[in-house]
């Protein structure tokens, strides 16, 4: 029986591959066995790509034999991809019926950069339909169970990508974050979830939801692993005109520099009504850990935080209503016949989209429609300016912000049927997207036996600083050792 790597980190696997303690094929076999043991309970995988993965693992073993220690960090390491990321020839649904059966004719840039390192792709992960949701209950392929308690949601929209790391199936996955869709599920599943600065990671090959907000990032077990994946996927891409041409700093150079002498801000508006006492307590303890490491901590104010949700629920639906116009039943995906092209559009889109996606298309179409554009869309764009400027002003005084990621721990499936109650899940993550900032969520302990997430936010393009603060807390607190019962169960 080979050594089990369930719940282990990228760094541990990479070291074992180089020492000859394991092979990429063995890591893959272990990941497939664990996936098949747990996925019936968490429903985290959509497409499974075992044959592709086996070829990739064999190639990775050959590359490690050839290149030894100089083989890339992710060579031979299994990964799962949120089903909004395209990989040539692998079924991609965005968890929607409207493109069921779609086989992408190309590979997105972030995914290609993993493949270039020798990654082993185990499959595509369940998510909220077109990444719209905060609980993964909006998937056309059923909800995802939280590995800490399968009756509870894993958060969303990247719920499957969070769950497969929390369950120990793979050491990392990719998700996308438009209003919190990496950080909030990371918080609810006790994983590390990193949303880089807007423009750091190419969106080419990410099925678009809200193009001015979407950003790809990793789920991992440790901050160091998040830095490893970030380094692999970040950087300019001519195929995405919003991708930043500024040079990417190496986060490993500063990861271990600690927080002594750093100025950390605690935004008072993030300790909102509705913040669970257990979440507040864990986050306040985490802030004390950072203070104990030599950081100065001061309260700061972001007065327009309260308007963030309203701003987001104009801008994101407006962009989604435009982006999702492409699902017309003509070029790909579902097609329902009508007597005319118009009737065919109506029938296809009426049958193909789920309730939340329709709701957002309706909201966005309304906000952009004649007579309402100024009152809603233009006003929201102006408030976005105010929100971003408030962050800029605060970052004149402090180096980074620390606060909760989610107001609550993971809630029970079906508990939030009212759309507005669901939208409140992302009240503490949305402003970061509106301002285009880097943000990370990492575990800071448990409340009632469920994980709590600490959020660290930095200025634009200070991704390395965010990782550095998070790493300092993680090392001092031991929070990286947190693993779900599905990992412990596999080790027993």
């Amino acid at each position, binding site marked *: 029986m080979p050594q089990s790597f369930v719940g282990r980190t990228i760094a541990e696997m990479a070291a074992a591959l180089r020492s000859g303690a394991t092979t990429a094929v063995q890591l893959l076999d272990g990941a497939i066995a664990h996936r098949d043991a747990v996925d019936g309970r968490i429903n985290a995988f959509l497409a499974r790509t075992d044959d592709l993965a086996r070829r990739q693992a064999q190639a990775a073993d050959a590359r490690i034999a050839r290149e030894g220690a100089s083989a890339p960090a992710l060579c031979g390491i299994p990964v799962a991809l949120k089903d909004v990321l395209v990989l040539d020839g692998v079924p991609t649904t965005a968890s929607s019926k409207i493109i069921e059966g*779609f*086989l992408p*004719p190309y590979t997105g840039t972030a995914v290609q950069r993993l493949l270039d390192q020798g990654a082993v792709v185990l499959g595509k992960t369940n998510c909220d339909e077109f990444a719209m949701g905060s609980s993964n209950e909006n998937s056309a392929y059923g909800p995802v169970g939280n590995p800490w308690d399968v009756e509870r949601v894993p958060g969303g929209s990247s719920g499957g990508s969070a769950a497969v790391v929390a369950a120990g199936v793979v050491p990392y996955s990719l998700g996308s974050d438009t209003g919190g869709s990496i950080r909030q599920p990371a918080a609810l599943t006790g994983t590390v979830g990193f949303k880089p600065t*807007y*423009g750091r990671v190419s969106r080419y090959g990410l099925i678009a939801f809200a193009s*001015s907000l979407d950003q790809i990032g990793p789920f991992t077990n440790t901050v160091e692993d998040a830095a490893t994946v970030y380094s692999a996927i970040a950087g300019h891409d*001519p195929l995405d005109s*919003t991708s*930043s041409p500024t040079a990417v700093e190496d986060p490993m150079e500063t990861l271990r520099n600690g927080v002594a002498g750093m100025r950390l801000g605690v935004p008072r508006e993030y300790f909102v009504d509705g913040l669970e006492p257990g979440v507040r307590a864990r986050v306040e303890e985490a802030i004390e850990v950072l203070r104990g490491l030599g950081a100065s901590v001061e309260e700061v104010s972001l007065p*327009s935080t309260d*308007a963030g*949700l*309203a*701003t987001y*629920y*104009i801008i994101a639906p407006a962009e989604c209503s435009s982006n999702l116009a492409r699902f017309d039943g*003509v*070029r*790909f*995906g*579902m*097609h329902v*016949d*009508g*007597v*005319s*092209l*118009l*009737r*065919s*559009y*109506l*029938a296809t*889109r*009426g*049958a193909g989209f789920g309730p939340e996606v*329709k*709701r957002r*298309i*309706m*909201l966005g*179409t*309304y906000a952009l429609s004649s007579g309402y554009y100024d009152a*809603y869309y*233009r*006003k*929201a*764009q*102006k*408030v*976005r*300016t*105010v929100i*971003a*400027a408030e962050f800029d002003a605060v970052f004149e005084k402090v180096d980074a912000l620390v606060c909760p990621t989610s107001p609550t721990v993971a809630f029970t499936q079906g508990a939030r049927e009212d*759309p507005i109650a669901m939208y409140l899940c992302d009240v503490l993550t949305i402003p970061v997207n*509106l*301002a*285009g900032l880097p943000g990370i969520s990492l575990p800071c302990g448990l409340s009632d036996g469920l994980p709590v997430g600490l959020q660290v936010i930095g200025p*634009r393009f200070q991704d390395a600083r965010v990782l550095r603060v998070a790493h300092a807390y993680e090392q001092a607190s031991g929070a990286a050792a947190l693993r779900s019962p599905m990992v412990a169960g596999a080790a027993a």
Partner: protein
Amino acid sequence: MSLSRDDVAHVAMLARLGLSDAELEQYQHQLDAILDAIGKLNEVDTSAVAETAQVGGLVNVWRDDEPRPCIGTERALANAPERDGPYFRVAAIQE
């Protein structure tokens, strides 16, 4: 303000969404409630600020217009529900 059933039907047509009567009814109530919550926007003074369309800081990103390989007709058509030779097939535009 309050959305009428006709308003909702109009928006659904603009969005090319064929909705059932039950859906129109449901979205009428839900969109009303959401738009009411979005009224918070008006609490922020924006008299002196410009709109933000994107936060990446980039302006007018150009590239040279150089021919490059593309995926080609067969791959572009591979996912089409209906095709007619090298074309996507659609229903008549007029009813």
